[in-house]
């Protein structure tokens, strides 16, 4: 189950007892977690009676898991850094154990969730208190983050071994986990904001870890945009608090509807603020820079989890602030859906634009990690579009909502796996340009297999996880023009083309990297085992296939309860979502069309050398907007300082006189 099926012939493990102790502990922990996941799935299928075995009752009735989940990683980070001074393997084992313990806590929360959502409060902090609340939506996010963090931490041990400043890396990785868990479990926007900012700063340390000029530049992009996004959320928060007197994620559409233009300002600021993290256009420019330069475990987590937090933020506010409370007379035409409707329409188009630009840019890339980063943007476009449909259709938005959530889970899995694959290639050959690689399937068979699995996942092949969520999202955009405006018909066309582009892009990745002839430089590199890395990747691959074969499980157990907890039409959910038949002929035929389109683009592109086409610089948002903006601010400041500082300082008495005369005049003449 652990996926430790490496068949590399020569694997001279570091001849060190501690190393093997570490590996054995990891294997044990991972096996235990997979057994537990199996048991967990069995229990959810059998029913909740099992949860009340006397032995487990104590464990399952503990009320403070959310607090523990936040506290454990935040406290463990400094501990790891301190241990790192003494021994590396002990630090890494602590890191793995921490994530394992976190994961256990997450599993143990489930039974309480069946009866009610879990509330925790730390009073007095910020004067409002910190409030945590785990509902189904949070639980999906929490469990994805938990399991992915466990696998990536195992993966990190071997990958990070040659790097410097490992203590720092583990410290901030653990703090980031605390931030992520806190953000998704927050029950009011102030708590969310606190952890959101913790996450921004700690993940900055991961991005800039290498301290190379490139990664510092990428880090600067990331941190400034992150701070700007945070401030946008802050302003929105102040507006919400002022106009509704609450910060909790409750249904506020009725209160906000009375505030006039403020509601639109709030919506725009929140979407912009969270969109920065989500890699939404046009505030995505940090993403393709930051993800490639970060160490691979960090890029896997950034692409896998962190950018989803932005999408989660949009989903969360769309299902609370912009949503009216359920009532007996609630219907689709209720005017309280107005804000949701307007924002949703905008967000759908932003999502469509994001996915199209992302995939288009991805096709131009030669650096594997950069290409994957652009695919992250493109896939985030799917999720943002789903969230947009959910908001746009309002009462009937359950399809868009579940598509967005489902795709969040799936993308977390296959994108982190793809980054891990790129990491293995880079660790072995120090090469990320796919045109300089080739024939690696012989050298890295396990990696090849998991790469194929991940690629099938992202391109939406039936029996791999992406298929389910892409079908749902496709249904969602179909509904957007069935129930809503006709122009979303074109959105659907873009959706199909983008899916084709994704297929093409991964054909390109696999054929250039793993197939074909092996360049000599590569062929001479000796084989060394990276067993723990392979095990971690195998773990993710198992999950991808598992979800792909049983797409209904995730849907029925987690996502449909999540949709039911918000103001979505229960009749609609029963009719379209419950026991959805994923493998129907219509969707399967759609997949065939997408794959045919993908192959066509690939061969046309290869024939006409379109993949080497690079857009002129002036077309990129960065050169049109951000660079000039930044340099303008700096230049203006310097200009003012050099030219006017001394002048102003020398003219002090004149300034005084002018102001005095001015104010006296104003007060006495104009006021009188």
């Amino acid at each position, binding site marked *: 189950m652990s996926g430790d099926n490496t068949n590399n012939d020569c694997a001279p493990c570091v001849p060190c007892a501690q190393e093997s102790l570490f590996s054995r502990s990891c294997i044990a922990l991972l096996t235990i977690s997979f057994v537990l996941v199996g048991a967990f799935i069995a229990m959810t299928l059998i029913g909740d009676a099992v949860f009340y075995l006397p032995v487990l009752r104590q464990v399952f009735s503990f009320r403070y898991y959310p607090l523990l989940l936040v506290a454990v990683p935040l406290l463990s980070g400094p501990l790891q850094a301190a241990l790192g001074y003494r021994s590396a393997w002990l630090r890494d084992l602590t890191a793995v154990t921490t994530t394992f313990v976190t994961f256990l806590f997450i599993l143990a929360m489930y039974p309480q969730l069946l009866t009610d959502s879990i509330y925790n409060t730390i009073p007095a902090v910020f004067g409002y208190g910190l409030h945590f609340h785990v509902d189904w939506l949070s639980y999906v996010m929490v469990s994805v983050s938990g399991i992915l963090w466990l696998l990536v931490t195992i993966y990190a041990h071997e990958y990070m071994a040659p790097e410097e400043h490992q203590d720092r890396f583990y410290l901030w990785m653990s703090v980031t986990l605390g931030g992520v868990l806190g953000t998704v479990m927050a029950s009011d926007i102030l708590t969310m904001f606190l952890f959101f900012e913790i996450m921004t700063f700690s993940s900055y340390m991961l991005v800039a870890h290498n301290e190379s000029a490139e990664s510092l530049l990428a880090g600067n992009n990331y941190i400034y945009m992150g701070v700007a996004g945070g401030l946008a959320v802050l302003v929105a928060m102040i507006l919400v608090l*002022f106009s509704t007197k609450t910060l909790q994620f409750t249904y506020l559409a009725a209160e906000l509807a009375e505030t006039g233009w403020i509601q639109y300002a709030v919506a725009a600021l929140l979407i912009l603020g969270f969109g920065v993290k989500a890699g939404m256009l046009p505030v995505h420019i940090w993403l393709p820079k930051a993800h490639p330069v970060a160490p691979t475990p960090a890029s896997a987590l950034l692409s896998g989890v962190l950018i989803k937090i932005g999408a989660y933020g949009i989903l969360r506010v769309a299902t609370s602030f912009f949503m009216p409370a359920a009532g007996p007379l609630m219907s689709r035409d209720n005017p309280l859906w107005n804000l949701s409707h307007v924002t949703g329409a905008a967000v759908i188009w932003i999502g469509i634009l994001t996915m199209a630009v992302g995939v288009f840019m991805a096709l131009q890339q030669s650096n594997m990690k950069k290409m994957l980063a652009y695919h992250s943007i493109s896939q985030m476009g799917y999720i943002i579009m789903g969230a947009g449909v959910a908001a746009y259709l309002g009462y009937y938005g359950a399809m868009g909502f579940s598509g967005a959530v489902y795709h969040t889970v799936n993308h977390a899995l296959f994108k982190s796996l793809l980054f891990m694959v790129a990491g293995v290639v880079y660790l072995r050959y120090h090469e990320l340009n796919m045109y300089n690689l080739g024939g690696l399937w012989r050298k890295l068979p396990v990696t090849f297999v998991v790469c194929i699995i991940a690629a099938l996942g992202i391109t939406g092949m039936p029996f791999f996880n992406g298929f389910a969520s892409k079908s749902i999202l496709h249904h969602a955009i179909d509904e957007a023009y069935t129930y809503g405006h006709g122009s979303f018909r074109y959105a659907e066309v873009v959706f199909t083309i983008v899916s084709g582009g994704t297929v093409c892009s991964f054909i390109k990745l696999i054929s250039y990297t793993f197939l074909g002839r092996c360049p000599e430089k590569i062929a001479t590199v000796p084989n060394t085992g990276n067993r723990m890395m392979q095990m971690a990747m195998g773990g993710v691959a198992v999950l991808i296939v598992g979800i792909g074969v049983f797409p209904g499980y995730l849907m029925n157990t987690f996502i449909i309860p999540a949709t039911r907890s918000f103001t979505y039409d229960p009749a609609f959910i029963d009719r379209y979502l419950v026991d959805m038949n994923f493998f129907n002929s219509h969707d399967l035929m759609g997949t065939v069309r997408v794959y045919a389109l993908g192959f066509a683009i690939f061969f046309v592109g290869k024939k006409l050398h379109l993949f080497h086409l690079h857009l002129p610089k002036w077309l990129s948002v960065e050169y049109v907007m951000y660079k000039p903006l930044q340099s303008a601010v700096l230049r*203006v400041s310097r200009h003012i300082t050099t030219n006017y500082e001394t002048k102003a300082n020398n003219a002090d008495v004149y300034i005084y006189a002018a*102001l*005095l005369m001015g104010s006296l005049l104003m*007060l006495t003449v104009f*006021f009188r």
Partner: protein
Amino acid sequence: MLSLHLPVYALLAPLIAALILPLTTDGDSRQLRYIVGGAALCATALAAVSLKGTLGGDVYTYYFGNWIPGVGIEFVINIFSSFMSLVVVFISTLVIFYAFRNITHDLAQHLIPYYFTLIFLMLFAMVGMIYTNDLFNLYVFMEILSLTSCAIVSIKRKGRNLLASLKYLMQGTIGSVSILMGIAFLYMVSGNLNMSALAELMPDIWQSHSINVLISIGFILTGFGIKAAVFPLHTWLPDAHSSAPTPSSALLSGLVVKIYLFAAMKLLFQVIGVDIMREVGLQLFLVLFAVSGMIMGSVFAIGQTDIKRVLAYSSVAQIGYIALGISLASPAGLNAAFFHVVAHALMKGALFLSAGAMIFTTGKRNVNEFSGMGYRMPFSMTVFTIGAFGMIGIPGFAGFISKWYLGLAVLDGGHPWILLIILLSSLLNAMYYLPIIIKAFLCHECETVPSVMERDGLPATMWVPMAIMAVLIVLLGVFPQLLMNITGQMPHLFL
């Protein structure tokens, strides 16, 4: 119950210390430190006890020499004056302890007793300005404060210090004269210098001699504009604050400018009254200056390379925040302003003290040379980071809370556009603080930097005050109610 003389003792303790200190000759002796430290702690304790007496909302008045208010001097000890004097004395005490070692870096031995004399005189004047309820007495304390604060800049006796303090002195004098002029215009028509009495007469005066009141407002505002370095009258501040010895910079930026703002508040709210302010439409006028200061202070700070100059210009921006809260003239605005006074005193104190510690140890002042400082002096740089995060407004640090309440106050006052200015100003703050921090902790071009963090090697008198400030910044950032419960009682004393 408060012993009636306690607050006055808190005022006298620094004065007595200031008189004793010149008698000692050895600037580095243990004796000097005992006297200085003892007096500072004593003043803190007295101020703390007098705060305890007023926490319930009691107000005490103290007549010097039992002269009646119209003739003699009246002190008012209420929650505002006792708390703010505690803040002043407490932060000064931290800075004084820090100064024991740090000042030996800047000053010759024989000047050190005089330096502490000046500091104590300054402390005396600051506390006096907070307590007093008499306009002319206010002016006297203000003059003492101006002269001593010039002197603690010029005591370094270098060319740029003398130049800076001369400019400070000239501008300060213009400001003082301007304020005196304003007071005179009020005295001319009222014949009274006691603030409470003036306030009672004010409606009648406003009816009969409104032109006097208006001219007086103009003079007073412009005068305090200079004194408190409100943009664009800030021009003396960067030179004076950056060239002064570090403890002086911390006191000047952290405390002195705010004392002038308090005095301006007393005149505006307690003498002239908020009704007249509203009638004249003074609020929007003041808001515009505050807002332009918030932006321009940061714009100037971005262009600087000297670390202390960056911090000095940052003060100009932060004074804009406080001035904004005051000029909103609403309970929420004043509350936010008071909170930010304390928060900024701590943050700017922490920033100046940590920057001073780095200058003390490495001699580097240029921010471009700060590469790898996080490894060379991790403790100081951490304190600097905490202060800077506070300034940017990262949640969990005191500055965030100020921005939060200021934002709510701005909405409450019906100026939602100022929210955008706050956002822009925070972004600009990030633009000059973050590069310093990033360069200090992550540095790619410096091979000479050790890869393992070293100890700072600071004496305890330096790092303990820095640590206390850093802890308080975080504490106030996480539990703002500790302070909000106190500052929340203050606005009604003014409005």
